[in-house]
């Protein structure tokens, strides 16, 4: 009986330790105040050493004194359920150990873990360091070697009483802060020193298969992950999937195809085929090398369809040479209707696209200066001239009507403006307008040819054009 009573502080400490693992509550019982009443711990915590006995005193036990007359009433009720914990520790196991120890020469008693140095009944919660000291683990708790975790803890899947919220409050060990942990390192640690298809017990203490599957879309094919038991509570941890350093390289987007072809298994860690198909049109062999998204597989990295960095600024203005010299690169992400949206514009389209909203009001300046070639996408006759004619801007034969009224002698001095902005001129003027003066056969016979005019070559390529002004009498000869 004496031995049992001496275990009381130990038992209480164990109970508190278990409680700490789940939901802690302050120690409301002042053990020191009662030190002379209870010479042994087991006086109140008989269940520690006696199977079938209650672990906690009942309210009636307290009421022996706290009956309202001798001492004030107390509202104590023993816990109704076992504690929520993932500790491997049990009362019986440690009671047996202590019993064996006390019959031998061990100094292990309840006070070893749960009593402060000032004496018995100076009860405190057992601290983890006590466990580590006894079990010869010479590190801080979370820095303990992988092989040590299972000494005190069961795996997450076995800790069935823990709630999702309990799991979410698990502290992260320092190893998780090490450089590279999110990428190669955690995989090496997970494989541990065990057999090939086993997972480190340290990982299994806090994690289960569902957690790994959040990022590893190839989890069904990875033996180490499959070695973990499934447990949806494991997703209570925040798994932040960050892109590896290589993905931040500006050239990554351009190079990722080759990398994926060479090492699809690397990509398959985080990406399903859906990642590729977010941008790419075809389900190519490289794409098919990745796992297909579906039930039983996490979604992994979510790829947003966005503008590549190479397309960053004004790319729409300069994409021509790139598209011409490397069209297969464009075809990886773009389908023909997307090209046609701009290059064969829909006459009823008014949504901002190549041109920003309200471009109609900007277009005179843009068209005059030809920042880009309007004629690449708009037929001058069908689009520009048609609209200008209907708006009354075309002279229709009368050249001196005064539309260009900001220059008093514009008609006489229009040559420079015409050679600089000929595309703008032909949006309103027909060839007949110009031929009324610039023909060798009539009118004022003004010569329109200017710098760069190669009469001989043009005549050879298309002498019929020459006949428009020169008739059959083309200078330099040549049959029309």
């Amino acid at each position, binding site marked *: 009986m004496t031995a049992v009573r001496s275990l009381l502080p130990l038992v209480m400490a164990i109970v508190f330790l278990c409680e700490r693992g789940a939901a802690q509550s302050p120690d409301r019982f002042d053990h020191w105040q009662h030190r002379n009443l209870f010479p042994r711990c087991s006086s109140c915590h008989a269940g520690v050493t006696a199977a079938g006995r209650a672990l906690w005193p009942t309210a009636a036990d307290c009421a022996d004194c706290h009956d309202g007359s001798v001492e004030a009433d107390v509202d104590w009720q023993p816990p109704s359920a076992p504690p929520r914990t993932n500790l491997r520790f049990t009362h019986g196991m440690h009671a047996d150990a202590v019993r064996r120890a006390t019959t031998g020469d061990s100094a292990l008693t309840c006070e070893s873990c749960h009593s402060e140095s000032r004496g018995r009944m100076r009860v405190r919660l057992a601290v983890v360091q006590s466990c580590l000291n006894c079990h010869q683990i010479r590190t801080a708790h979370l820095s303990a070697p992988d092989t040590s975790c299972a000494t005190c803890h069961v795996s997450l899947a076995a800790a069935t009483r823990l709630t999702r919220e309990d799991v979410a409050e698990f502290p992260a060990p320092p190893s998780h802060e090490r450089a590279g942990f999110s990428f190669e390192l955690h995989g090496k640690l997970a494989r541990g020193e065990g057999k090939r298809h086993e997972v480190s017990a340290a990982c299994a203490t806090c994690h289960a298969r569902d957690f790994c599957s959040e990022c590893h879309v190839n989890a069904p094919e990875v033996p180490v992950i499959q070695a973990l038991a499934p447990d949806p509570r494991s997703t209570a941890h925040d798994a932040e999937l960050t892109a590896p350093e290589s993905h931040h390289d500006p050239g990554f987007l351009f190079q990722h195809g080759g990398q994926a072809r060479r090492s699809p298994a690397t990509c398959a860690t985080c990406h399903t085929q859906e990642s590729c198909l977010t941008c790419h049109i075809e389900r190519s062999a490289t794409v098919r090398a990745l796992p297909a998204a579906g039930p039983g597989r996490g979604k992994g990295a979510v790829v947003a*369809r*966005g503008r590549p*960095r190479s397309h960053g*600024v004004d790319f729409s203005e*300069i994409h021509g*040479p790139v598209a*011409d*010299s*490397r069209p297969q690169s464009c075809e990886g992400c773009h*389908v023909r*209707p*997307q*090209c*046609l949206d701009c*290059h*064969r*514009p829909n*006459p*009823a*389209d*008014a*949504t*901002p*696209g190549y041109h920003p*909203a*309200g471009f109609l*009001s900007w277009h*005179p*300046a843009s068209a*005059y200066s*030809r920042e880009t*070639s309007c*004629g690449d996408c*708009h*037929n001058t006759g*069908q*689009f520009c001239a*048609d*609209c200008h004619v*209907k708006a*009354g*801007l075309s002279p*229709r034969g009368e050249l*001196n009507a*005064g539309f260009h*009224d900001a*220059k008093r002698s514009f008609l006489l001095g229009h040559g420079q*403006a015409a*050679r*600089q*902005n*000929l595309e703008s001129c032909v949006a309103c003027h027909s060839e007949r307008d110009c031929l009324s003066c*610039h023909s060798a056969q009539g009118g004022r016979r003004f010569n329109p040819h*200017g*710098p*760069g*005019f*190669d009469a001989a070559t043009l005549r050879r*390529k298309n*002498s019929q054009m020459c006949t428009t002004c020169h008739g059959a009498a083309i200078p330099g000869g040549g049959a029309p």
Partner: protein
Amino acid sequence: MIRHARNALAALAGVSLLASSVEAQGYRLRLDTRGQAAAYRGVRADSVPVTDVVLTPTGGFQTADGLFVRCPTGATHCFLFRPGPYRQGGPLVTSADLTLWGLGTRGLSVRVNGRAGLDLGDNDSWPGTDPPIQLIEAYAEYAPRGVTARVGRQLLSNRLGIVGVDGGRALVRSGRLGLTAEGYFGWGLARATALSVSSSALDPLDDFQPRRRQFVAGGAVGWTGRHANVRLDYQREVERESRQFASERAAISAELRPHSRWSLTAGAEYDLANTWFGTAEATLRYTSPWLTALAGARQYRPHFDLWTIWGAFSPVPYHAVNASVWLRPIPRLELRGRWEQYAFSAAEAETPLVDVDDDGWRFSAGASFSPDQVWTFDLGYREEYGPGASSHGVEASVSATPLPTLTLTAYGSTLDRPLEFRFEEAGVDVIGLDAEWRRSDRLRFALGGAHYSTDRRRPDASGFDWNQTRLHARVTLHFGTGADYAPLPRAVRPQRRAGS
């Protein structure tokens, strides 16, 4: 055109029936209907007897109701432009884009893209809706490993432009060597349209026009390596009636990528008929996670077919240098800027009678800020000064994605756009709202409208009210399988959109 469309549809239906029993058949179909309602007002040429005009205090002449007139020496009438009538435009266009594959032969596919449109407004006033049915593409493609062959109406895209052809194209490539060679031929379509050069819809000015379609032939060779790619193009267009050239051009495009952050892109066209270089450019680009910078030089010269006389009028090129910067100092903020300075070559037609600018510049700067996944704010300023016209103004937009499927964008801008050759220093203010709702991957709606408020600052009574409101709507349906359901990011301004 209708006959062609009917034939294409019949062929497509036949292929579809033939393919219905093929297990692996796949298809992608996009149906898209867009409509717009817009009113605008132009001008109307008029004349009055010389006796009806009055002298203005500045020494000019005007009508009794205050409109400036032009009175040629010795003429009995003076000319003027009166405010034109209000016109209502209501284009409504339905597009169908269909791709079929898995037709029993590996690599065989069929593609059709066509439009049916009409103008619901008055007097068929909207450009581009005539003729009502336009077949953009309709071809069969056979693409086994290393070879691609196409037959039918197709658009050929190369450095010389995007030209439509009714004909054939064959491409051979060696993946190991990175070499590509292609050739094509056929009957051409007019530039930037699905119509032939002989179509009356392309001749609103009642100008000279070829009576028959031109014959197009060309080819290209290209090489793509790990750090560079280059392509050479040659193309000729021959008038079928006269057997003379409508154009003969060659081009080169190249890209050099010595480092993952650096690239040099260049290209040039050479007009073999006019014996001059056309448009050409070279751009050096630096790209890092937070900075993209470009510096380039270019020449722009318009190209005219030889069935017009415009090439003989010696259009002169301009030469430009430019630089662009795109900066992301913090992840949600993007700053952009672009500048270009250009000058025309000597036109050799300068005269003291009319002083014409021969150089110009353009500048734009802006910022886009996305504080969270819902909001995107964008502000930009642009200014350009050049021959013919100038402009400067501010534009701003706020885009919100309150739901993953819904994007709302409000925008506004204010602009001054003085012209060089006409008194029309108009100030234009625009406000608008666009909404896009992705009902599902297969169904999208868009609705929007904008109001243009114009301040015409003319010294006479011609500064008439040009204010207008435009409304537009769009419905897009996708069928089949494919990754192109999601819209592309906007071409001009990176704004967040639903699902991206």
